[in-house]
């Protein structure tokens, strides 16, 4: 089936390897994905310099000049004040105006979130946006047999109320339905015990709310030990806890690889054993490779934002663009909006956006 054409704004100046790797990723996308048009937002001269040396199809990409860029380590609020014409701001405006359907950035997370929050609107009924991340599990789910679960929030909202947690669950379930083609996703609350009365008051209250949400299969509370088992397709927590969990999962993956490298150096017998297992290790590496995931969706806004890792290279940017295109084609914000409307009672509270946690992902 032919994919509908979709235009994505890419912040060319955001990320540790910007603009070179970002431009290269977009150049690759222009060669292979005929339905994706991209707008590279950033310093025109620098983007053109990179483009002129790489194979690309200019029919599927254009450049939108932005004279400023937000440094990776800058404080979000101050940075946006100092750089009002930063690439991330201009890119968010292009999405707001309908020139592009989604935004991809590997830049400063806090500044990106703030730029979106100041430019876009929250979906009616959603009080706070959430940053979601996928992580590999031992269970496969959905018609795509997706091995990934979705964890949210991983850093956008540090203090989430019970209502917020319930809204995160609804947004995560919508995402799983669209991206993983998982019609009725299993949703869980991350807590320090599986009992419904265990955990802080907001988690207990959220548990009560989630039991009444239609269109999802609420499996109750889960503990940290259940995360890699894939007990749930969507795991909900507040941004502080989510960020700690995400970093720990990344740390475990990196440590496992370091241990394997150490073992290979230490003994010939171990090296031989590792060589025999190399294809299996390669599969694990592919499964746990964050560059394959394509970035973390920022859910809750009426527009789409895929946040790629700050260390993203061209492959990660390509995958982030593919995820953005898929979510845009399915009109994910509208899907979330529809589900939230079913869940949130009429006359929901006024929206508000809190200062996001500064995270790498």
């Amino acid at each position, binding site marked *: 089936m032919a994919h509908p054409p979709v235009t994505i704004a890419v912040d060319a100046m955001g990320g540790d390897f910007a603009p070179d790797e970002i431009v290269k990723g977009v150049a690759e996308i222009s060669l292979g994905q005929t339905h994706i048009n991209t707008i590279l937002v950033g310093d*025109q001269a620098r983007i053109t310099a990179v483009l002129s040396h790489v194979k690309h199809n200019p*029919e599927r990409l254009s450049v*939108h000049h932005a004279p400023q860029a937000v440094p990776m380590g800058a404080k979000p609020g101050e940075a946006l004040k100092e750089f009002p014409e930063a690439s991330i701001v201009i890119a968010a405006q292009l999405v707001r105006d309908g020139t592009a359907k989604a935004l991809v950035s590997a830049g400063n997370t806090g500044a990106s979130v703030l730029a979106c929050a100041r430019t876009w609107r929250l979906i009616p009924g959603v009080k706070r946006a959430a940053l979601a991340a996928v992580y590999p599990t031992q269970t496969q789910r959905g018609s795509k047999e997706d091995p990934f679960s979705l964890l949210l929030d991983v850093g956008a909202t540090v203090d989430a109320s019970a209502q917020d947690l319930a809204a995160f669950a609804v947004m995560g379930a919508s995402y799983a339905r669209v991206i993983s083609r998982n019609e009725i996703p299993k949703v869980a609350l991350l807590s320090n015990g599986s009992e419904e009365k265990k955990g802080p008051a907001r988690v207990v209250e959220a548990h009560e709310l989630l039991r009444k949400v239609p269109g999802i299969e609420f499996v109750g509370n889960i503990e940290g030990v259940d995360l890699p088992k894939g007990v749930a397709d969507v795991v909900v927590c507040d941004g502080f806890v989510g960020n700690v969990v995400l970093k720990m999962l990344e740390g475990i993956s990196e440590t496992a690889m370091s241990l394997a490298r150490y073992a290979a150096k230490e003994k010939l017998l171990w090296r031989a054993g590792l060589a025999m297992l190399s294809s299996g290790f390669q599969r694990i590496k592919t499964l746990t490779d964050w560059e394959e995931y394509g970035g973390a969706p920022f859910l809750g806004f009426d527009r789409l934002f895929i946040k790629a890792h700050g260390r993203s290279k061209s492959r990660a940017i390509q995958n982030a663009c593919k995820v953005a295109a898929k979510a845009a084609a399915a009109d994910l914000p509208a899907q979330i909006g529809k589900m939230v409307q079913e869940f949130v009672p009429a006359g929901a509270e006024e929206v508000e956006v809190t200062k996001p946690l500064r995270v790498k992902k």
Partner: protein
Amino acid sequence: MSLVDRIDPPPARQLFRWDLDKTYLRTDFDTFRQLVKTALEKASEKVNVPGTAALMRELKREETRVLIVSGSPRQMRRVIEDKLRLDGVVWDELVLKDNLGNVLRGRFRAMRNQVGYKLPVLLESRLRYGLDVPETLFGDDAEADAFVYSLYADIVAGRVSRELLSEVMEAARLYPDERGRLLQFFDELTQAREKAGGLVGIEPVRRIFIHLDKLTPPTRFSAYGPRLVPIYNYFQSALVLMADGQLNSLSVIKVALEMVQGYGYNLISLSNSFQDLIRRGIPVSQVAGALAEALTTHNPVLAALLPAPDILAAFAGRVASLGAPPPAPTPVDVDYRALIDDARPRTDKKRRLSANED
């Protein structure tokens, strides 16, 4: 064309020289299977590179000549002529390669060699039309068109010495008879130029278009100077020709229409192509105004076919979104000795190494 014009045609005022495979026609002959398929295709099965038929039709006027020189075998003449007729293209010269003769004489090197075949053909043809007639050439990035066309342009302009030509022939491993033929035309051109008192103020080859069939990065061709414009599609060449004063806005719109109606191009891909030229410093910004004028004048056919306000907004938007336009590329003297690997066949090891270094 009237009978009188056919018997005694008006003198050529502009030459448009085309390659066929990967320039005019979408041809794949990288594998033996593709080669056989190409050879057995009927005229109606051959597919154009989008926009080429419309562009060639628009370029053909009473005072212009459309000349075709292709590496396709002579045995394909009938099919190629049928294809051109199907496209409504009128041509003045069609030269094909004697591949069978090369095979029968065991000259296998000559089958892939572009310098030994195309350069003498170009020079010989040029002697027929005169040195002061401006010329535009169309080639592609698959073989050695950029090198051969540029060298040809500089030979006609008198900027290439006999010594340099000999070095190129040596590097391209030409057969002795090919060298003799090439040097003969070179000498004849030199004499003709001297007889005409030189070519003061005349640039015989105005523009060389290289169709980036393999999507080779355009900077790969920057050593050939701004005379050579790498193009991703023929809407881009139509825009440059319009900026050069060779095409009017209506002709450009016809090329664009063919690409939209027949090949799936849309407003985004065309306006992106337009912006790509501007990003590369090719001065086409001013043609946007002329195109806008053509679109907004009361032409009922255009009005029915094209959403003029959308087109104007898309093109103006692409220009505005770039901020300050980049500077135009500066003219350079082409250093053929440094580029000599480009003269070798595409499969040559030295050429592959040179391309990888880029």
